[in-house]
């Protein structure tokens, strides 16, 4: 079935797992950091090799289809760049002694476990397995968020943990309900949890049950997506954890949770009598967008600010997918990819900035373009991108999101545009202070790895102007699948 000498699906899962095992054993920072990068790279390669799998037979546990390949590749790519970034970041953390060497092993191992969890969640064909994987990823990130052991970090982790586990519970209940709905149709046993089988028979499920199931799944996984009003854990978790983790959280984990929501949305959409999932997602999306947009204004902590911007963008993406239709789905996918790349790039910049300025308070960071031109302009570029200005990718996706409303519900464009504008104002307001004006704080040179940041920005820039036809075809195909 497979032209490749190895099974890419397995390797996508096993490499991180093995990496985690090894990293957990090895002491010493330099080696582990390099190994970490290596493992991430291998994962990326095997993820890319997924494209060359000609025939895909869905297994009972794992499967590959067009939808999750995109997520996996994005996932392992950002994971790779983040590991590169984290190498230079963590070294600085060690020098300043914020991070004790003891925790370092733990850190790298956990990083790989997290990658494993997310990849597993993406390739899982079994909704139970998917649930397990997502919880695994969540719990690892909980531990990573608390890694600094400062009161704030612990509190953030604690909050994340409590809210997360409630989410866990709700998602599990939803999963059980889906099984209950499937059992009379598919029959007892494992098959009733295999997604590919579920989607075939979804039409005959009991509508009331899967409605209920979707409510729980939406709330359960929506907590991970960080949609308002379930977002509470997100800002603090981003702000207090190590920056690489913030990058991974914003860039990846939210997407994985969103992916789960999408899967179940498909399930629900396949059933004619069931409620349309769209309105719920659109409502929560708009709520998150507008809410986060307003929250951006009063932020004092730079990482927390960008965390809120992640909520905002997740809202936009949820809005797009909820809106449905090929155009909107395409826009949602594109926006998701662009947001992952941009936001992680921003967090790379922010990580170095907060290190060199030794603060996360926006008020204490001024005139970066003067004091640290590369970081400063990188940040400017990133914020300009995330604010949706051309010629960067998010402009295109936001253009598509807004214009897609005219196909379905034109008046929805008004609140959408309003939210976008409010968020824009807030981001620019903060950027003005951060990047321009008289420099403030230390102007010491920073040893930073600019490669990941500018690589991401370059990709976003390129995508804003030119999307390669194969990619477009691929996305359009998926957009069709998503209905």
């Amino acid at each position, binding site marked *: 079935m497979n032209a490749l000498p190895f099974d890419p699906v397995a390797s996508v899962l096993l490499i991180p797992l093995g990496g985690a095992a090894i990293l957990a054993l090895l002491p010493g920072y330099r080696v582990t950091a390099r190994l970490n990068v290596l493992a991430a790279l291998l994962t990326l390669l095997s993820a890319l090799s997924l494209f060359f799998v000609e025939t895909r037979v869905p297994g009972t546990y794992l499967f590959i289809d067009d939808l999750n390949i995109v997520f996996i590749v994005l996932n392992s790519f950002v994971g790779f760049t983040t590991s590169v970034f984290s190498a230079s970041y963590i070294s600085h953390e060690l020098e300043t002694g914020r991070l004790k060497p003891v925790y370092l092993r733990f850190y790298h191992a956990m990083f790989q476990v997290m990658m494993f969890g997310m990849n597993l969640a993406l390739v899982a064909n079994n909704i139970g397995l998917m649930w397990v994987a997502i919880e695994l990823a969540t719990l690892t990130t909980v531990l990573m968020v608390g890694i600094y052991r400062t009161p704030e970090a612990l509190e953030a982790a604690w909050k994340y943990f409590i809210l997360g586990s409630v989410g866990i519970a709700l998602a599990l209940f939803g999963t059980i309900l889906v099984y209950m709905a499937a059992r009379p149709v598919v029959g007892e046993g494992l098959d009733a949890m295999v997604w590919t089988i579920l989607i075939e028979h979804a039409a005959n499920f009991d509508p009331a049950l899967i409605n209920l199931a979707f409510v729980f799944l939406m709330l359960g996984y929506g907590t991970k997506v960080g949609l308002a009003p379930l977002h509470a854990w997100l800002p603090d978790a981003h702000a207090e954890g190590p920056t690489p983790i913030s990058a991974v959280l914003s860039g990846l984990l939210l997407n994985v949770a969103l992916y789960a929501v999408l899967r179940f949305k498909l399930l629900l959409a396949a059933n004619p009598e069931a409620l349309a999932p769209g309105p719920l997602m659109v409502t929560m999306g708009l709520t998150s967008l507008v809410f986060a947009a307003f929250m951006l204004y*009063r932020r004092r902590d730079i990482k927390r600010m960008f965390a809120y911007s992640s909520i905002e963008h997740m809202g936009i993406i949820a809005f797009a997918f909820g809106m449905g239709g090929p155009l909107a789905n395409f826009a949602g996918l594109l926006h998701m990819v662009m947001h992952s790349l941009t936001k992680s790039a921003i967090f790379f910049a922010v990580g170095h900035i907060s290190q060199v300025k030794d603060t996360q308070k926006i008020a204490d960071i001024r005139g970066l373009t003067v004091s640290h031109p590369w970081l400063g302009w990188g940040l400017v570029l990133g914020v300009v991108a995330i604010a949706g200005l051309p010629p960067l990718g998010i402009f295109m996706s936001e253009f598509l999101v807004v214009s897609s409303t005219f196909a379905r519900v034109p008046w929805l464009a008004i609140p959408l545009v309003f939210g976008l504008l409010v968020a824009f104002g807030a981001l620019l307001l903060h950027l003005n202070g951060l990047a321009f004006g008289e420099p403030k704080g230390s102007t010491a040179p920073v040893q930073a790895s600019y490669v990941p940041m500018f690589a991401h920005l370059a990709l976003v820039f390129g995508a804003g102007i030119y999307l390669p036809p194969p990619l477009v075809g691929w996305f359009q195909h998926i957009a069709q699948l998503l209905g």
Partner: protein
Amino acid sequence: MNSVSMLLLCVAALLGLSVLAVAPVRTRAVHTLIYGGALAVSLIALGAAVAHIAIDGAADSTAVLPLGLPWLGAHFRIDALAAFFLAVVNLAGAAACLYGLGYGRHEEAPHRVLPFFPAFLGGMNLVILADDAFSFLLCWEFMSLASWALVMAQHRNPENARAGYVYLVMACFGTLMLLLAFGLLSGPAGDYGFAAIRVAEHGALPAALVLGFALIGAGSKAGLVPLHVWLPLAHPAAPSHVSALMSGAMTKVAIYGFIRIVFDLLGDPPWWSSMAVLIVGGVTAALGVLQALMQRDLKRMLAYSTIENVGVIFCGLGLALAFQASNMGWAAALALTAALFHVFNHALFKSLLFYGAGAVLTATHERDLERLGGLIHRMPATALFFLVGCAAISALPPLNGFASEWLLFQAILQSPELPQWGLKIIVPGIGAMLALSAALAAACFVKAFGIAFLGRPRSAAATNAQEVDRFSTAAMAILAALCVLTGIMPGLAIDWISPATLSLLGDRMPAQTIDPWLSIVPIAQGRSSYNGLLVFLFIAFSASIAVFAIHRFASNRIRRGPAWDCGFVEPSPATQYSADSFSQPIRRVFGTLVFRAREQVEMPPPGDSGPARHLVEQRDLIWDGLYGNIAGAIGFAADRLNYLQFLTIRRYLSLVFLALVILLLVLAI
């Protein structure tokens, strides 16, 4: 090689230049290379655009690049309208490059200007070239972004940073409004190519909505009241040659956007929507010039006068819409020609004036009129060119500003034949507004020139100012010459515009160049005509006769002496009329109404030799009334919502719980 690919190559070259300028070498060579290269490229682009107009009935040349929206591609197209605006933009651009060659040397942060300047030029060209909604908006926003970077060039001054912020937010607002307009235009089908939009049918209400969005979106960039607030902040903040570009060229690009959407894509909106354009235009013209009169910062005054001229142009557009709605093609063509002609003229003399202001700035490091004066002695060339600019923008015959205003008045005189009562009532009012703003503009520029260049120096800086470098003067000289030329032979310009009106309205003004003595005749010889050339010649002729006769037959001797001044001896320069005192009478006439201006005089008690104090406070009602409240509302909402950041975990849980219960209730019901 058709003209569109020619221009695309020019744009590519400009963008290449801006990439080149990022290179960290900071030498004069780089500076010269960038501006020189940009100059060459803009000249080429100008040539291409002019050639496209000149070739009579040149076919629209189009090009499609595999960029932008994947399934659409990036469409570019040059038609008569685009060619005209390209000519305007690139003319202004070339002048700016020439000026920049000299002016840019005094830049304190060249690395914050050089990379963005060519990008800005390229962006403006791209907007005009774009032929589908996505590329249009992308280039539009890119243009805003580049100009924003230029505004932020002197970012250490907090005022500029604020200006940049307000500017970019307003720009984004405008773009989103345009996005809504395009969304409505392309409808559910969602085909964003202009070609598809053109053929689509639009109902009356959607059409009116689109026009509204376009008016807001393009107007916020062009500086229509009440969306103009960013303009007087941002334009002065940029380096002067960029200010000139922003005022002279970018506002024109915005006007192009409006014309493209409303006249070309939208087909014919209902007649009553033209009233909105007319009223907004009239109010903008009057308010803009009044504000300009109250300024004492030279560049800010120029920025406000830009707002006035934009208002004038929109009056013309509104008239054209009204006529078009009643199928009076000839009148619509007249109005539109007047508007486009004014676009061209304003690009000329506003650039010229900003260069003059820039020259004054480099010579004296002063923008405050109260600290200038007597510069005509120290900077004769600049003074002469600035005077030409002032005369032109004050619509004095035989200069170009008058020609376009005259056409506009002729268009207004056609309006009684409109069937609609609403228009009948407001059009004369608009005419009065235009006349008022023309007169106020004259007053404004008497003040500008009189205070800055005439009289005696009010500060040491003004006393020992030096004439600026030859690049700057050359740029000013060229523009001044163009002002005079277009003024005395406006027929040429009109004939160059008429292809655009023909393509948009299917009608055009009669050919002018065939008339004897190059006079312009809008409708018929019997109706009205004006001949700038002859007026110019007559004045020159009779003036020289007078000079000759008097110097020949009467005395030609001159004695220098102290000023008479009713016998006051050697008063200090401080006793001259200052900028504020000059505008005081007009402030007393209009100020209380428009600015809530309050004056209070504190006289020292008799016998006390202390100085008397005269305080004037005036408020920008629009800022206070509109933007202040919006900002307040957002701040309020942000504060209230911010409490949600500080809840306890339990409260967050109860949020989740609440959401769950509500959804369950939804299911249960």
